[in-house]
Each structure stands twice: as C-alpha cells, then as structure tokens.
C-alpha cells in the first residue's frame, strides 16, 4: 500500500496524464480522501498551464477564424432550422403542409425513443463503470489481504485488554470416522525444555484416556498439531492436555493442565 508521500510524488505525472491506469486509479482513490494532494494537484496544473503557455507565439491562420465562425453559424442554423417562413406555408396545399408535419411527428417520436434509449444506455454505462470501479477496488483490497496473510515477514499481533494476560486457548478438531485430529493452541504457558505437551482423547463411557500426539509451543505459546488416532471410530467425550516427558506417555501424568471447557 502506497503512503501519502508516494502518492504526492506521482501527482505531477497524474496531472499530465502520464501515469499508467493502475497507478492513476490508486491515486484517484487517494485524492478522494487527501485535501493536501488535491491542492497540490491544482497547483501543479497551474505550473503545467505556465509550461503550456510557454509554447504560445505562433498565430493561427486567418482561415481558422472564418472556419470557426462558419461552424458556429451552421450549428445555429441547424438549431433554428425548423422555424420556417409563415407566408410560404400559407401558399402550400393543406396536405403538403400536413405531410411534413406528420413526418416531423414520426421523426420526433422516433428521436424521442432513440434519445430515451441513448439516455438508458448512458445510465447503464455509468452504472457499469461505477460497478467496475468498485469491483476493481474490492479485488485490489482482497489481493492485498491475501498478500498480507501469506507474507512470511509480516508481524502478527494479538491485542487484549491492557494488563490482562492473554487467555490460553486450545481448539481440537476431531474426525471420528477417520481418527484425524487437528490441534490449534494459543498462548499456552511455557514448559521446561525436557517436557512436552501431550493431547489425550477422553473416550465416551469410563474407558481410560487414550494417548494422542505430543507438541511443543513457539515463543508466543502457539502450536498446531495434526495427528491420527491408532484406532478409528472412537467416540470422544472430550480431550485433555498434560505435560509429559519428551516422547510422551501411555498414561497421563497429573495434573491435567488443559481440560474441556465447561
């Protein structure tokens, strides 16, 4: 994500239309929220106007003036073209007067239809443009989120109420029919190097706890452990975690340090 200084650097190029589409789009979004950049853009346009004015000197040929005058007169003539001479109209037979009128009505109706269609297309176009711009913004935003999530260099932090130790938390996902287990632990207490945490499956009924895998935590107390039970289809009423010697145990060493919630 660019910061203000980087956007400010691009303003001159933007004012000249010399930025590529992607950079222009990003800058436009920034301009919507940055009054300082908007003011600088106006000032840069003032500088560019001076630069443009430095090219003045040669005068256009006289025919250009005449050409513009004729073009404007032609537009005026077309605008007022429907206003004919009344005297001439009076001399025409009635049908001759009505025929052009009928054609005019038809044309007007057709034109109105076309105008409405053009307006509809314009509206649709504008709507599509707005939607496209929003889609592009959403896609760019999603892409940035994805980059952040997959960036190994990104810092990850959890904030909690000040002066409150973050609560330890273990999530266990268990697929009984396949015996698959996925453990996700957060903020567990550190343990000696010669110890490991071990997960235990607490079977339904009164059977003894069944040993699962052992795991260590990182410096923040986090861990992730995929595991598979030796037997499939074991009904579990819960899981528990104990601290065991490295290599794990067959029976849990008390106390249970993490037990099912509730």
């Amino acid at each position, binding site marked *: 994500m660019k910061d203000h200084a980087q956007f400010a650097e691009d303003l001159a190029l933007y004012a000249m239309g010399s930025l590529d589409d992607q950079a222009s789009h990003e800058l436009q979004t920034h301009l919507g929220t940055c009054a300082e950049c908007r003011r600088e853009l106006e000032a840069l346009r003032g500088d560019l*106007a001076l*630069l443009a004015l430095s090219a003045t000197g040669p005068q256009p040929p006289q025919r250009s003036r005449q050409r513009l005058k004729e*073009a404007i007169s032609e537009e005026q003539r077309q605008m007022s073209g429907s206003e004919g001479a009344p005297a001439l109209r009076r001399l025409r037979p009635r049908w001759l007067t009505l025929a052009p009128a009928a054609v005019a009505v038809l044309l007007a109706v057709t034109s109105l239809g076309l105008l409405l269609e053009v307006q509809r297309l314009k509206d649709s176009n504008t709507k599509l443009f707005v939607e496209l711009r929003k889609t592009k913004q959403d896609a760019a935003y999603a892409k940035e989120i994805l980059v952040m999530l997959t960036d190994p260099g990104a810092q990850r932090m959890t904030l909690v109420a000040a002066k409150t130790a973050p609560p330890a938390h273990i999530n266990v996902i268990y697929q009984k029919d396949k015996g698959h287990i996925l453990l996700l632990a957060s903020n567990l207490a550190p343990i000696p190097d010669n110890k490991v945490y071990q997960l235990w499956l607490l079977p339904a009924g009164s059977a003894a706890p069944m040993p699962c895998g052992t795991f260590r935590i990182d410096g923040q107390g986090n861990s992730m452990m995929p595991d598979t039970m030796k037997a499939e289809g074991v009904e579990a009423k819960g899981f528990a975690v104990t601290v065991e010697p490295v290599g794990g145990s067959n029976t849990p060493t008390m106390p249970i340090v993490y037990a099912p919630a509730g």
Partner: protein
Amino acid sequence: MAGRQPATPQDDAALIARLRDKDENAQNAMADLYDRYSGIVYGVALRVLGDTTAAEDVLQEVFLQLWRKPEIFDAERGRLAPWLAVIARNRAIDVVRKRPHEEDVDEIPIASGVDLEEISARRLAVEKVRGVLANLPPEQRTALEMAFFAGMTHTEIARKTGEPLGTVKTRIRSALLAVRKALS
C-alpha cells in the same frame, strides 16, 4: 471603463455568460474570446503536434466545445487562459496518442499564483518560464518535455532514456518545481 483592452477575469466571465444565449450577441462574444485566446490554443497544439493542419483542428475543437458548453468553465475556479492552454495540450496529446476524445470539456480545477489574465503579465510569465526551461539541467528538461509535450508515460520515458522510473519521476517533479519557484 471604456477602452480597457487587457482582458480581466470579469471580462472573460461576462463573455462566457453571453455565450449561453446562443444569439448574435453570443457569436460576437465568441469572436472576442477567439481573438484573445486563439494564439494560446493554437501555439500549444502546434508545439505538441508539430503540424499546422492538426493544430488548426484542435483549435477548432477546443473553441467549439467552449461554444457548446460554456457553463463548464467556472471563472471562480480557474482563469480562462491557463484553462484553455491545458485543454489544448490535453486534446493535442489525445491526437498524438490516438485516444478517443472526451465528449465533454474537462472540468479541471487550476490554481496558479500568477495572474495570467493581463496580457502583459502573461507575456512576462511566458518569458520567465522559457528562461527556466533554458537553464534546467538537460536531462530534467528532456524528461519534462517528453511527458508534457510528447505525452509519453513515465514508463515510456524510462525505457527510452534508460533511466530508472524513480529518476524520471524526480526529474519531472524537480523541473516543475523550478518553474513554480521562478514565478512565485
């Protein structure tokens, strides 16, 4: 008031207001505006295009747009001379780059610390800018001219000059700031 020749913002605004009626009076106002500013529009277009016929076409187009939509120009936001200069440059670049022309005249807010309405002030400013350009380091002037008068993107300039993109950006920015500083 009689006989005051140099254009003032009020004069321009009054002429623009007269255009809206689209009557004979409006055509006279248009002729006045053309006489005042056609040299600016044509000069800029010619500088960009290097072709008198193409420059005349841009001149015609810019003034016809002013005639058709005078309400686009807001005397409060920018003066007519710099506005027309920027519009002429943009239209000419569209021709160079074979881009379709926008149907509407651009709404471009322009702020300048220089009063460009007075003809004498404008001439003085133009001379100063030419002096700044002449004294710029050649690489800065080239980068600025490639972007502004040739309509090249900074990527194209970097490719053509073999310089990094950041260097191209910095040169253009420095050159423009030198223009601003000389006129502030």
